[in-house]
């Protein structure tokens, strides 16, 4: 079985960090397994854990979204929960497991921020990576909203 460090090396949220630095982050968290339809995060709750998908798929749901409530599906290597880490607000969306099984790595946001303050090299790179990841999610959302209508292929 891959260790979290192995998988986290393939997540761009941790690009630019050394293996030792990734191991330092990994030591702050733990692996959780979810099954289909399990809720990982509930919108409105107050919790600051940050998650990385190690395997499987989860969907991001907002009942306030126009059209379909699912905002995006996230697969291996993707992070979620970063908003509550950054702004200490309530969860803005619900996250649900949609694959038969999904493994995620969870880190308490408070501990992650403490590490970022203590180890400024890690903190600067991680915050830059989080900003890039949020920008990528916005680009994806814009592309999905612009997607043209078309029929079913065979």
């Amino acid at each position: 079985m891959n260790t979290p460090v192995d998988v986290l090396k393939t997540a761009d949220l941790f690009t630019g960090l050394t293996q030792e630095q990734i191991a330092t982050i990994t030591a702050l968290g733990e692996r959780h397994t979810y099954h289909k339809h399990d809720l990982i995060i509930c919108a409105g709750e107050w919790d600051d854990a940050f998650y990385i998908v190690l395997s499987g798929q989860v969907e991001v749901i907002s009942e306030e979204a126009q059209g379909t409530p699912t905002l995006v599906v996230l697969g291996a290597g993707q992070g979620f929960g970063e908003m509550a880490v950054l702004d200490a607000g309530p969860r803005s969306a619900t996250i649900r497991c949609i694959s038969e099984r999904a493994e995620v790595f969870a880190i308490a946001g408070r501990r992650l921020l403490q590490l970022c303050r203590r180890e400024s090299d890690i903190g600067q790179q991680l915050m830059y990576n989080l900003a890039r990841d949020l920008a990528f999610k916005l680009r994806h959302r814009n592309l999905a909203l612009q997607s043209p209508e078309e029929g079913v292929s065979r």
Partner: protein
Amino acid sequence: MIYKISYVIIGGRHPGAIVNQDHMPYIGEKVQIGELWYAVQEIKDLLPPQRNFAYLHVTCQPTKPPAKQN
């Protein structure tokens, strides 16, 4: 190289997916998002590569699941 992919589904009813994978997608490849399957129609660079990551925009259409292998 790790490929960070924005999978966008033609039709606009599905929000698509973001996935990191270790292989370059190819036209016609079938990918599973949730319970449904999609065929890759088009692949474009979305952002310049950085370190060992490539950032791609992949357009897909709904398709049938791949035939089960014996």
